[in-house]
């Protein structure tokens, strides 16, 4: 029911009538298809994925040989998730040399460090390429991520052999690891009102994907394409009959500072009325024709100083009240 108005005149149809979404997806799939044929269709083409020449089998010496000198590393390797590499290729997979490269030259050279790949000393891009040769499927956005562009390689945060957090092979646990570079965020988590990252309830990776994402600031989204905030604060996800539009169009950060704030409820300013009046003021109707200013006697700021949300309590959206009273 829509009160007699014709659907043909609704702004949604006016905006969406050319079905750009379908067009986008069709072009996207066709582009992918053509790129795939280009990559794979040529007969006698070089095998896909063969970026560098693979060493011959005789170049590998096996992990037992590595253990003769690097006992402190191999001793605890059984508990490392990378032991699964041994189970690949019909249980013929290697472990050490899968990452460090074939070891014969290194062994024959008496431990010549120039003959073996050392992630601790290699350039960031080489390290990333090595790790992503297996993990690219899980971290497909890393190459475009701010971390990659800043030269923060996989071994900046991860260590296969010397880890504090064995779950993700991190050099240090969150959030201490993240604070090593993002020191300007740490004070926000010590403000009176904050997401409990320092207490361990929330991790940086609950909201951000350090390996990159399609969203700004490496933010994640929920499974339902809503803001990541709604994964925990699910009562704000809606959809509602009466939306507070900015919640959906501008995002939660139009009112909240998610890391931490001096203000209750992580608000951007100290006073609720000041926050609301920032937008609900009709000061320039030509620039903001849709601005709505409060009407009615109770909005006299000195007759009744009640905070706006005492009446407009369902401020994230309501199914029963256009003014979010209930």
């Amino acid at each position, binding site marked *: 029911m829509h009160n007699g108005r014709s659907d043909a005149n609704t702004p949604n149809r006016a905006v969406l009538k050319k079905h750009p979404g379908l067009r986008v997806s069709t072009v996207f799939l066709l582009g992918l298809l053509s790129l795939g044929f280009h990559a794979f269709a040529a007969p006698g083409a070089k095998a896909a994925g063969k970026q560098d020449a693979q060493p011959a089998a005789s170049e590998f010496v096996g992990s037992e040989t590595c253990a003769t000198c690097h006992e402190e590393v191999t001793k605890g390797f059984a508990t490392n998730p990378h032991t699964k590499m041994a189970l690949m290729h019909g249980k013929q997979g290697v472990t050490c040399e899968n990452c460090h490269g074939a070891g014969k030259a290194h062994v024959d050279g008496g431990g010549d460090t120039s003959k073996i790949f050392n992630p601790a000393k290699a350039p960031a891009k080489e390290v990333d390429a090595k790790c992503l040769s297996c993990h690219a499927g899980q971290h497909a956005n890393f190459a475009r991520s701010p971390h990659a562009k800043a030269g923060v390689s996989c071994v900046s945060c991860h260590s296969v052999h010397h880890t504090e957090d064995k779950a993700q092979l991190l050099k240090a646990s969150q959030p201490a690891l993240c604070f090593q570079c993002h020191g300007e965020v740490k*004070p926000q988590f010590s403000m009176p009102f904050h997401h409990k990252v320092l207490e361990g309830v929330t991790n940086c990776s609950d909201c951000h994907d350090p390996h990159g994402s399609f969203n700004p600031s490496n933010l994640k989204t929920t499974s339902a394409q809503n803001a990541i905030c709604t994964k925990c604060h699910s009562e704000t996800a809606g959809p509602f009959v009466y939306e507070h539009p900015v919640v959906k169009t501008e995002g939660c950060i139009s009112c909240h500072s998610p890391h931490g704030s001096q203000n209750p409820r992580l608000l951007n300013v100290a006073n609720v009325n000041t926050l609301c009046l920032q937008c609900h003021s009709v000061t320039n109707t030509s620039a903001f024709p849709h601005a709505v200013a409060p009407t009615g006697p109770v909005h006299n700021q000195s007759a*009744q100083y009640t905070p706006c949300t005492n009446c407009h309590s369902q401020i994230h959206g309501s199914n029963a009240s256009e003014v979010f009273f209930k």
Partner: protein
Amino acid sequence: MKTRLFFNSFVVRASVFAGSLGLAAIFAFSGNAQEQAKPQPAPAQDAGSGKPWANYDIHQSFDLGGHILSKDGSSAMYDTLVNMESGPRILNHTLQMHATPGSRHALFDTLFEDSTGYGGDPYSFSTLRASKGKAYDFVGTFRRDRQFFDYNLSGNPLVPGGALAPTSNGYTFPQVLDSPHFFNTVRRNTDLNFTFLPVSKVSFRVGYNLNIMQGPSQSSIHIGADALLYQGWRNSTQTWLGAIDWKPIQRTTFTYEQHVVQYKGDTFWRLTGQNMQLPNGAPVTLGFDTVASPKPSGATSFCGSQPAVLDNSTNPPTANPCVNGYTAYSRFAPTRTLFPTEEFRFQTSAIKNVQMTGRILYTDATMKLDTYRESFRGMESRVTTPAPDGATRWCTTSKGVRLDCHTGQVVAGGASAKRFDFGADYGLVWQLSPDFALSEQFDFQNWHQPATATFNTIDFYAASMISPLDVTTGPDLAAVYSSLGQKMATNTVMGEWEASGKVQIGVGYRFRQRTLAKLPPDPEDPSYSLTIHENAGILDAVIRPTRDVRINASTEIGWADAAYVQTDPRQFQRYQVRATYKPITWATVSGSFTDREGRDNEFLINYRAHHRALAGSTTLAPNEKFSFDMSYGYINDYSTVVDCFDASVPPAAGVTAMPVGVACGNAVNADGVAPTAFYGNSYYDAPTQYGSAALVWTPSKLFRGGFGYRVNDVYGTTQLLNPLAVPGTLRSKYQTPFVNLAYTFTPAWTAKADYNYYSYGEDGPSGPTASRNFHSNMYTLGMHYQF
């Protein structure tokens, strides 16, 4: 008329799934499988020593102990910021099980469990990981978080005290000492993820997440007066995931994921805070925010001209049944929302020098509120609706026109809403040469939410809250339709040039077009759409003058040709610099600076905002016996924008009267009359300093000691419209020094002692409510046992 949907949900879902299968099939049949050189067999690994049992090496540890707390000052603020209490605790437990070399097990080869904070702490977490060779990996987490919030300035109407206290017939209306919107809820989040055949060409993932939020809290409602409501939080979200990952060739993965999210909202509301009685003994509240002495009932009302409190000598006081108040209120709105989402992803670096990834997603969500029920009994005497006889006006007792007032309402009905959300993203990095790479990212999202609601309302009218019903009107059927939608396309292209082994520079450009459209539920309000175009230039630099020094810098400067709301910047800038210096292996010095600026220079908007953060830290760990770290941070959050409001008494500073005849809502200044409509500046400035230092000393393997100090200090200013408002936490200092000691008696037993001091103080008056300052000493004693 049935709304024609932009997306036929079944067609789109089928297209996504079929397209993904087809595309994957094309790659599979056209790609060349890569032959890898045959490696040597893997050796047996040494699993390490532990307590052997059933062919497992087992390590386990317990930390048992408890807290001893002493505190003074505001318990409410302590519970809001810290909320740790005395009592025994399971401080920590860990269990590790690893299969001994050569052994075979049915369920798992490796199991790891870690639990912290059980027994009474506000936060508890558990992690469980298990895996069995190439069969499966499992990760499960459980987190419990008690959220207590009673910052008493939040939602507080600031009822004055002393000589300004509102009174009626000798009764003084109480000040509000706690937050009217306090919380004491618990969130429990369980996350389970299985991956089957993780190292195979085809692997499968299933996941489940359960998020429950429940507990008591308070809210409020406005019907005449403003009443306090008990809000019983109860909502839950379940998320199911099923996914297939297919690696047809090396360096290429196709993924199909099916997500289903189900939300259940069962929060309910009922009246609380009835601190008076009616003449017939029924409990009643006249509202919790009586900030000025209430007016008496009208001379021609059922009660005659009587004060709001008829008799202050009874217990509880007797209220006037002809003034605004509540005798009962309840609201139930059981809501069910389902969000099924299909996602197809691909990633490939099989093409030489190219890394590509992309995805398409489609969500078709449905919200149903089938049985909304709301009931109000009390008095709303400001209604001036003409009575059915057309000659009289109802319920204006304060103006003494008519006797009958709005004394009850029952609302029942339902609502439903849909959310259609289509997303597509594509990213590419093309290494054009060893020194130059091009990256491109395109993002598209199109969502819209049509919604309908239908409610039946029955209204009751009577002469007073204790009078028999005079008139009943309704049921009045009200149906609404609304819609909100947004379409956004963003394209970012970057060129990265490795100028030398020490310098890398990136230059890029971002364009975004966003169109939003709204169909308001009130047919009197016009529908509208707005298109915003954003352009931004991006510049990045990575400088490594030596192996020990790294400097990252980035900046983004952009502008938009429109803004939806006054606090959306039309000009925006972001600057960021990070530096790390490692002069020797055991010392690290780092610093960072971030500046986000936003502007809108439109006339009578003048929006200015920035977030500036400067931080530095030093870590020294010269040997196993000593380590020290220190950090400092300065953050300044600032914003100002012109606002306008109605105020019969203008605030003290920062306001100017609006020109005569220029409206702000219904606030308009008339010529020759004292102004009541004002421009303000929404000024907010919060400069914050943070410091921390910690030292750990381990003179021997038997003893470890550490102490440190953290402080967060802010002195801010803001526009205060209420003359009784105080800065509160905006001018405060929060200090937390700590000491911890550990002594190892034997390799299995270690005694631990922690001391934490929490001190919170505000620089300024507490306002017309209780003080929020507190100090507390928390002693934690524990014994660690491992085997």
